[in-house]
Protein backbone atom coordinates (compact mmCIF):
# COMPACT_ATOMS: atom_id res chain seq x y z
CA UNK A 1 0.00 0.00 0.00
CA UNK A 2 1.30 3.47 -0.79
CA UNK A 3 2.31 5.29 2.31
CA UNK A 4 2.14 8.95 1.50
CA UNK A 5 0.06 9.90 4.53
CA UNK A 6 1.68 7.38 6.85
CA UNK A 7 5.34 8.09 7.55
CA UNK A 8 7.01 5.31 9.56
CA UNK A 9 8.61 7.61 12.12
CA UNK A 10 6.28 9.71 14.25
CA UNK A 11 7.34 13.24 13.39
CA UNK A 12 6.48 14.89 16.71
CA UNK A 13 8.82 14.49 19.68
CA UNK A 14 6.82 13.74 22.80
CA UNK A 15 8.41 15.15 25.99
CA UNK A 16 9.40 12.61 28.63
CA UNK A 17 7.77 14.64 31.40
CA UNK A 18 4.25 15.93 30.81
CA UNK A 19 2.36 18.48 32.90
CA UNK A 20 -0.54 17.20 34.99
CA UNK A 21 -2.33 20.56 34.84
CA UNK A 22 -2.28 23.76 32.77
CA UNK A 23 -3.98 27.07 33.44
CA UNK A 24 -5.80 28.54 31.58
CA UNK A 25 -7.00 25.23 30.19
CA UNK A 26 -7.41 25.57 26.39
CA UNK A 27 -9.62 22.48 26.01
CA UNK A 28 -12.98 23.40 24.50
CA UNK A 29 -14.30 19.86 24.37
CA UNK A 30 -13.14 16.28 24.49
CA UNK A 31 -15.02 13.51 22.69
CA UNK A 32 -14.72 9.78 23.35
CA UNK A 33 -16.45 8.02 20.49
CA UNK A 34 -17.28 4.51 19.37
CA UNK A 35 -18.59 3.85 15.88
CA UNK A 36 -20.36 0.56 15.44
CA UNK A 37 -22.64 -1.59 13.38
CA UNK A 38 -25.52 -3.45 14.94
CA UNK A 39 -28.78 -5.17 14.16
CA UNK A 40 -31.11 -2.59 15.70
CA UNK A 41 -32.82 0.10 13.66
CA UNK A 42 -32.28 3.74 14.59
CA UNK A 43 -35.84 4.05 15.86
CA UNK A 44 -35.12 1.72 18.78
CA UNK A 45 -31.66 2.96 19.83
CA UNK A 46 -32.59 6.08 21.83
CA UNK A 47 -35.02 4.12 23.97
CA UNK A 48 -32.56 1.31 24.58
CA UNK A 49 -29.82 3.69 25.70
CA UNK A 50 -31.98 6.11 27.65
CA UNK A 51 -33.37 3.23 29.73
CA UNK A 52 -29.80 2.51 30.85
CA UNK A 53 -28.50 6.03 31.50
CA UNK A 54 -31.58 7.94 32.69
CA UNK A 55 -30.49 7.85 36.35
CA UNK A 56 -27.65 10.29 35.49
CA UNK A 57 -28.56 11.65 32.06
CA UNK A 58 -32.00 12.98 32.77
CA UNK A 59 -32.40 15.40 29.88
CA UNK A 60 -32.45 14.56 26.17
CA UNK A 61 -32.60 16.68 23.05
CA UNK A 62 -32.58 16.15 19.31
CA UNK A 63 -29.79 17.62 17.22
CA UNK A 64 -30.62 19.48 13.98
CA UNK A 65 -29.59 16.53 11.79
CA UNK A 66 -32.42 14.50 13.32
CA UNK A 67 -34.80 16.60 11.22
CA UNK A 68 -33.27 15.25 8.00
CA UNK A 69 -35.24 12.24 6.67
CA UNK A 70 -33.59 8.89 7.44
CA UNK A 71 -33.53 7.81 3.78
CA UNK A 72 -31.56 10.95 2.89
CA UNK A 73 -29.12 10.45 5.76
CA UNK A 74 -28.49 6.83 4.80
CA UNK A 75 -27.53 7.84 1.28
CA UNK A 76 -24.86 10.30 2.33
CA UNK A 77 -21.77 8.56 3.78
CA UNK A 78 -20.67 11.81 5.39
CA UNK A 79 -23.78 11.80 7.58
CA UNK A 80 -23.75 8.19 8.70
CA UNK A 81 -21.49 8.66 11.70
CA UNK A 82 -22.94 11.89 13.02
CA UNK A 83 -25.04 11.96 16.19
CA UNK A 84 -28.71 12.78 16.05
CA UNK A 85 -29.45 13.30 19.72
CA UNK A 86 -27.90 14.07 23.10
CA UNK A 87 -28.48 12.92 26.66
CA UNK A 88 -27.27 15.46 29.20
CA UNK A 89 -26.01 15.12 32.75
CA UNK A 90 -24.46 17.75 34.97
CA UNK A 91 -20.87 17.30 33.76
CA UNK A 92 -21.09 15.33 30.50
CA UNK A 93 -23.29 14.57 27.56
CA UNK A 94 -23.78 11.40 25.58
CA UNK A 95 -24.31 11.72 21.84
CA UNK A 96 -26.07 8.99 19.89
CA UNK A 97 -26.55 8.32 16.19
CA UNK A 98 -27.44 5.26 14.11
CA UNK A 99 -23.79 4.13 14.04
CA UNK A 100 -22.08 6.22 16.70
CA UNK A 101 -22.16 6.80 20.44
CA UNK A 102 -19.89 9.21 22.28
CA UNK A 103 -19.20 10.72 25.67
CA UNK A 104 -18.50 14.45 25.44
CA UNK A 105 -17.34 16.96 28.03
CA UNK A 106 -19.38 20.12 28.54
CA UNK A 107 -18.06 23.05 26.49
CA UNK A 108 -15.13 24.86 28.16
CA UNK A 109 -15.50 22.77 31.30
CA UNK A 110 -12.91 20.01 31.04
CA UNK A 111 -13.24 17.90 34.17
CA UNK A 112 -9.83 16.17 33.96
CA UNK A 113 -8.84 12.71 32.75
CA UNK A 114 -9.54 10.91 36.02
CA UNK A 115 -13.16 12.07 36.04
CA UNK A 116 -13.51 11.19 32.36
CA UNK A 117 -12.07 7.71 32.82
CA UNK A 118 -14.50 7.03 35.64
CA UNK A 119 -17.45 8.22 33.56
CA UNK A 120 -16.28 6.24 30.53
CA UNK A 121 -16.20 3.10 32.64
CA UNK A 122 -19.81 3.68 33.68
CA UNK A 123 -21.06 4.66 30.22
CA UNK A 124 -19.43 1.70 28.46
CA UNK A 125 -21.08 -0.66 30.95
CA UNK A 126 -24.44 1.02 30.27
CA UNK A 127 -23.96 0.73 26.51
CA UNK A 128 -23.16 -2.94 26.91
CA UNK A 129 -26.34 -3.44 28.91
CA UNK A 130 -28.34 -1.60 26.22
CA UNK A 131 -27.11 -4.29 23.81
CA UNK A 132 -27.25 -2.46 20.49
CA UNK A 133 -23.55 -2.52 19.54
CA UNK A 134 -22.92 -5.56 17.36
CA UNK A 135 -19.37 -4.78 16.31
CA UNK A 136 -17.03 -1.88 16.95
CA UNK A 137 -16.00 -0.11 13.75
CA UNK A 138 -13.78 2.61 15.16
CA UNK A 139 -12.89 3.88 18.61
CA UNK A 140 -11.60 7.41 18.82
CA UNK A 141 -10.68 10.27 21.11
CA UNK A 142 -10.83 13.88 19.96
CA UNK A 143 -9.61 16.98 21.77
CA UNK A 144 -10.38 20.51 20.59
CA UNK A 145 -8.18 23.27 22.07
CA UNK A 146 -8.66 26.99 21.61
CA UNK A 147 -6.13 29.81 21.73
CA UNK A 148 -7.04 33.47 21.41
CA UNK A 149 -3.78 34.23 19.56
CA UNK A 150 -2.46 32.99 16.21
CA UNK A 151 -1.22 29.64 17.46
CA UNK A 152 1.07 28.86 14.52
CA UNK A 153 3.83 31.06 15.92
CA UNK A 154 3.74 29.02 19.14
CA UNK A 155 3.80 25.58 17.51
CA UNK A 156 6.57 23.42 16.14
CA UNK A 157 4.45 23.12 13.00
CA UNK A 158 3.96 25.60 10.22
CA UNK A 159 3.15 26.00 6.57
CA UNK A 160 6.13 27.15 4.53
CA UNK A 161 6.35 28.95 1.20
CA UNK A 162 9.76 29.12 -0.48
CA UNK A 163 11.12 27.48 2.68
CA UNK A 164 9.89 30.43 4.75
CA UNK A 165 7.16 29.98 7.40
CA UNK A 166 3.89 31.47 6.27
CA UNK A 167 2.76 33.43 9.31
CA UNK A 168 -0.07 35.91 9.70
CA UNK A 169 -2.19 34.57 6.84
CA UNK A 170 -5.43 32.74 7.54
CA UNK A 171 -4.34 29.12 7.50
CA UNK A 172 -5.98 25.73 7.99
CA UNK A 173 -3.67 22.68 8.04
CA UNK A 174 -4.85 19.08 8.27
CA UNK A 175 -2.67 15.99 8.22
CA UNK A 176 -3.03 12.34 9.17
CA UNK A 177 -0.26 10.62 11.12
CA UNK A 178 0.15 7.10 12.39
CA UNK A 179 1.64 5.94 15.68
CA UNK A 180 1.53 2.16 15.99
CA UNK A 181 -2.02 1.08 15.29
CA UNK A 182 -3.36 4.53 16.15
CA UNK A 183 -4.32 6.90 13.33
CA UNK A 184 -4.23 10.59 14.21
CA UNK A 185 -5.83 13.44 12.31
CA UNK A 186 -4.26 16.73 13.32
CA UNK A 187 -5.92 19.95 12.30
CA UNK A 188 -4.65 23.42 13.14
CA UNK A 189 -6.42 26.58 12.07
CA UNK A 190 -5.99 30.23 13.01
CA UNK A 191 -9.39 31.14 11.61
CA UNK A 192 -11.81 29.70 14.15
CA UNK A 193 -14.63 31.17 16.18
CA UNK A 194 -15.37 29.56 19.52
CA UNK A 195 -18.32 30.11 21.80
CA UNK A 196 -17.20 31.06 25.31
CA UNK A 197 -18.88 32.25 28.46
CA UNK A 198 -18.03 35.77 27.29
CA UNK A 199 -19.57 35.21 23.85
CA UNK A 200 -18.01 34.15 20.51
CA UNK A 201 -14.26 34.72 20.24
CA UNK A 202 -12.01 34.52 17.17
CA UNK A 203 -8.72 32.67 17.45
CA UNK A 204 -6.93 29.41 16.73
CA UNK A 205 -7.95 25.81 17.20
CA UNK A 206 -5.83 22.70 17.62
CA UNK A 207 -8.11 19.76 16.83
CA UNK A 208 -6.69 16.26 17.30
CA UNK A 209 -8.69 13.12 16.56
CA UNK A 210 -7.00 9.75 17.25
CA UNK A 211 -8.60 6.39 16.55
CA UNK A 212 -8.18 2.64 16.34
CA UNK A 213 -9.65 0.53 13.53
CA UNK A 214 -11.92 -2.50 13.86
CA UNK A 215 -9.19 -5.14 14.06
CA UNK A 216 -7.54 -3.36 16.99
CA UNK A 217 -10.51 -2.64 19.19
CA UNK A 218 -13.66 -4.03 20.75
CA UNK A 219 -15.54 -1.50 22.85
CA UNK A 220 -16.40 -4.02 25.57
CA UNK A 221 -13.16 -6.00 25.61
CA UNK A 222 -10.41 -3.39 25.39
CA UNK A 223 -12.31 -0.14 24.84
CA UNK A 224 -11.28 1.54 28.09
CA UNK A 225 -7.63 0.64 27.59
CA UNK A 226 -7.76 1.96 24.01
CA UNK A 227 -9.44 5.19 25.13
CA UNK A 228 -6.59 5.62 27.61
CA UNK A 229 -3.92 4.98 24.99
CA UNK A 230 -5.47 7.47 22.59
CA UNK A 231 -5.78 10.06 25.36
CA UNK A 232 -2.14 9.60 26.36
CA UNK A 233 -0.99 9.96 22.77
CA UNK A 234 -3.01 13.12 22.18
CA UNK A 235 -1.68 14.61 25.41
CA UNK A 236 1.89 13.83 24.40
CA UNK A 237 1.35 15.17 20.90
CA UNK A 238 -0.15 18.39 22.28
CA UNK A 239 2.83 19.12 24.51
CA UNK A 240 5.21 17.95 21.81
CA UNK A 241 3.83 20.54 19.42
CA UNK A 242 4.06 23.50 21.81
CA UNK A 243 7.10 25.73 21.78
CA UNK A 244 8.39 26.67 25.26
CA UNK A 245 7.09 30.25 24.91
CA UNK A 246 3.50 29.09 24.37
CA UNK A 247 3.76 26.40 27.04
CA UNK A 248 4.92 29.02 29.57
CA UNK A 249 1.70 31.03 29.05
CA UNK A 250 -0.24 27.95 30.20
CA UNK A 251 1.61 27.78 33.55
CA UNK A 252 2.23 24.01 33.49
CA UNK A 253 2.23 22.13 36.81
CA UNK A 254 4.10 18.85 36.92
CA UNK A 255 3.03 17.44 40.29
Amino acid at each position, binding site marked *: *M*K*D*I*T*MPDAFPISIPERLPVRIEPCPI*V*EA*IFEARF*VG*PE*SWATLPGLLFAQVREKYTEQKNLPLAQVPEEFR*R*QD*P*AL*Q*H*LPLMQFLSRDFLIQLGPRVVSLVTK*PNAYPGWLAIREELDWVVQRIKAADFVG*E*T*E*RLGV*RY*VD*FFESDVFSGLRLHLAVNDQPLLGA*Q*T*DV*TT*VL*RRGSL*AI*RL*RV*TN*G*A*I*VGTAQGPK*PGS*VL*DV*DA*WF*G*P*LEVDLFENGLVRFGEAHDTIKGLFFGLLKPELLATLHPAYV
Partner: protein
Amino acid sequence: MTALMPPPPSSGYALVNDLREPAAVANIHRTAPDEWAREELLLAKLGARGWGRVHHFRNYYGSGWGEHAGSMLSPRALSAFFRFVDAFEFPSGVIPSVFLTDRGGIELCWEEESRKSVQVEFTRTDAEFYREATGEEGALAHGALPQLVLRLSA
Protein backbone atom coordinates in the same frame (compact mmCIF):
# COMPACT_ATOMS: atom_id res chain seq x y z
CA MET B 1 -10.12 11.33 -8.20
CA THR B 2 -8.99 12.85 -4.95
CA ALA B 3 -8.95 13.63 -1.54
CA LEU B 4 -10.56 13.87 1.86
CA MET B 5 -14.01 13.46 3.29
CA PRO B 6 -14.41 16.44 5.60
CA PRO B 7 -14.21 15.39 9.24
CA PRO B 8 -17.43 15.48 11.21
CA PRO B 9 -18.09 19.04 12.29
CA SER B 10 -17.30 19.87 15.89
CA SER B 11 -19.82 21.77 17.92
CA GLY B 12 -16.82 23.33 19.65
CA TYR B 13 -15.85 25.79 16.93
CA ALA B 14 -16.70 27.19 13.52
CA LEU B 15 -14.31 28.31 10.81
CA VAL B 16 -14.31 31.84 9.46
CA ASN B 17 -15.82 32.13 5.97
CA ASP B 18 -12.50 32.25 4.15
CA LEU B 19 -11.47 28.86 5.50
CA ARG B 20 -14.69 26.93 5.05
CA GLU B 21 -14.94 23.95 2.73
CA PRO B 22 -15.69 25.00 -0.82
CA ALA B 23 -18.94 23.70 -2.22
CA ALA B 24 -18.84 20.02 -3.11
CA VAL B 25 -17.84 19.22 -6.66
CA ALA B 26 -19.86 16.38 -8.15
CA ASN B 27 -16.98 14.45 -9.70
CA ILE B 28 -14.60 14.75 -6.78
CA HIS B 29 -14.88 11.97 -4.26
CA ARG B 30 -13.33 12.63 -0.86
CA THR B 31 -12.14 9.72 1.23
CA ALA B 32 -12.34 9.53 4.98
CA PRO B 33 -9.20 10.64 6.82
CA ASP B 34 -6.57 7.90 6.82
CA GLU B 35 -8.23 6.10 3.90
CA TRP B 36 -6.59 7.70 0.90
CA ALA B 37 -4.08 4.86 0.63
CA ARG B 38 -6.87 2.28 0.83
CA GLU B 39 -8.82 3.94 -1.96
CA GLU B 40 -5.72 4.04 -4.15
CA LEU B 41 -5.09 0.38 -3.40
CA LEU B 42 -8.61 -0.64 -4.40
CA LEU B 43 -8.44 1.31 -7.63
CA ALA B 44 -5.08 -0.23 -8.49
CA LYS B 45 -5.99 -3.85 -7.74
CA LEU B 46 -9.76 -4.09 -8.21
CA GLY B 47 -10.26 -1.41 -10.85
CA ALA B 48 -12.94 1.27 -10.91
CA ARG B 49 -15.75 -1.29 -10.84
CA GLY B 50 -14.39 -3.08 -7.77
CA TRP B 51 -13.67 0.20 -6.04
CA GLY B 52 -17.23 1.34 -6.69
CA ARG B 53 -18.72 -1.91 -5.42
CA VAL B 54 -16.78 -1.76 -2.15
CA HIS B 55 -17.84 1.87 -1.72
CA HIS B 56 -21.48 0.85 -2.16
CA PHE B 57 -21.20 -2.14 0.17
CA ARG B 58 -19.78 0.07 2.89
CA ASN B 59 -22.18 2.93 2.59
CA TYR B 60 -25.47 1.85 1.11
CA TYR B 61 -26.20 -1.69 2.31
CA GLY B 62 -27.89 -1.58 5.72
CA SER B 63 -29.21 -4.47 7.77
CA GLY B 64 -31.82 -6.49 5.88
CA TRP B 65 -30.53 -5.92 2.33
CA GLY B 66 -31.39 -8.41 -0.39
CA GLU B 67 -33.79 -11.34 -0.50
CA HIS B 68 -32.28 -13.09 2.50
CA ALA B 69 -32.17 -10.15 4.92
CA GLY B 70 -28.40 -9.76 4.64
CA SER B 71 -26.26 -8.29 7.40
CA MET B 72 -24.35 -5.03 7.14
CA LEU B 73 -20.75 -5.29 6.04
CA SER B 74 -18.62 -6.18 9.06
CA PRO B 75 -15.93 -3.53 9.75
CA ARG B 76 -13.54 -6.27 10.90
CA ALA B 77 -14.14 -8.22 7.70
CA LEU B 78 -13.49 -5.12 5.63
CA SER B 79 -10.24 -4.35 7.46
CA ALA B 80 -9.02 -7.92 6.93
CA PHE B 81 -10.01 -7.67 3.26
CA PHE B 82 -7.92 -4.50 2.86
CA ARG B 83 -4.91 -6.15 4.51
CA PHE B 84 -5.15 -9.13 2.19
CA VAL B 85 -5.60 -7.06 -0.98
CA ASP B 86 -2.61 -4.97 0.05
CA ALA B 87 -0.34 -7.97 0.58
CA PHE B 88 -1.48 -10.31 -2.20
CA GLU B 89 -0.24 -10.07 -5.78
CA PHE B 90 -3.01 -11.16 -8.13
CA PRO B 91 -1.99 -12.85 -11.40
CA SER B 92 -0.94 -10.39 -14.05
CA GLY B 93 -3.91 -8.87 -15.87
CA VAL B 94 -6.45 -10.38 -13.47
CA ILE B 95 -8.95 -8.13 -11.76
CA PRO B 96 -10.82 -9.99 -9.01
CA SER B 97 -14.55 -9.74 -8.49
CA VAL B 98 -15.87 -8.63 -5.13
CA PHE B 99 -19.14 -9.50 -3.42
CA LEU B 100 -20.99 -8.70 -0.21
CA THR B 101 -22.19 -11.91 1.46
CA ASP B 102 -25.44 -12.44 3.35
CA ARG B 103 -23.66 -12.70 6.70
CA GLY B 104 -21.88 -9.36 6.28
CA GLY B 105 -18.63 -10.73 4.89
CA ILE B 106 -16.84 -9.57 1.78
CA GLU B 107 -15.69 -12.08 -0.83
CA LEU B 108 -12.99 -11.98 -3.48
CA CYS B 109 -12.99 -14.30 -6.50
CA TRP B 110 -10.44 -14.58 -9.28
CA GLU B 111 -9.01 -17.04 -11.74
CA GLU B 112 -5.48 -18.34 -11.57
CA GLU B 113 -3.39 -18.76 -14.70
CA SER B 114 -4.69 -22.35 -14.94
CA ARG B 115 -8.20 -20.84 -15.33
CA LYS B 116 -9.18 -22.41 -12.00
CA SER B 117 -10.95 -20.20 -9.51
CA VAL B 118 -10.00 -19.01 -6.03
CA GLN B 119 -12.53 -17.69 -3.53
CA VAL B 120 -11.78 -15.97 -0.23
CA GLU B 121 -14.50 -14.70 2.06
CA PHE B 122 -13.49 -12.34 4.85
CA THR B 123 -15.90 -12.50 7.77
CA ARG B 124 -16.04 -10.86 11.16
CA THR B 125 -13.89 -13.60 12.68
CA ASP B 126 -11.77 -15.17 9.95
CA ALA B 127 -11.01 -15.67 6.25
CA GLU B 128 -12.47 -18.72 4.54
CA PHE B 129 -10.91 -19.84 1.29
CA TYR B 130 -11.33 -22.38 -1.52
CA ARG B 131 -8.79 -23.07 -4.26
CA GLU B 132 -10.20 -25.09 -7.15
CA ALA B 133 -6.81 -26.04 -8.60
CA THR B 134 -5.74 -27.94 -5.49
CA GLY B 135 -9.05 -28.57 -3.81
CA GLU B 136 -7.77 -26.83 -0.69
CA GLU B 137 -10.26 -25.12 1.58
CA GLY B 138 -10.21 -23.85 5.13
CA ALA B 139 -10.49 -20.90 7.45
CA LEU B 140 -7.75 -18.79 9.00
CA ALA B 141 -8.00 -16.17 11.72
CA HIS B 142 -7.38 -12.53 10.78
CA GLY B 143 -4.00 -12.71 12.49
CA ALA B 144 -2.95 -15.42 10.04
CA LEU B 145 -3.55 -13.40 6.87
CA PRO B 146 0.17 -13.40 5.96
CA GLN B 147 0.06 -17.21 5.90
CA LEU B 148 -3.02 -17.12 3.68
CA VAL B 149 -1.22 -14.78 1.29
CA LEU B 150 1.73 -17.19 1.11
CA ARG B 151 -0.54 -20.21 0.69
CA LEU B 152 -2.51 -18.72 -2.19
CA SER B 153 0.61 -17.33 -3.83
CA ALA B 154 2.31 -20.74 -4.02
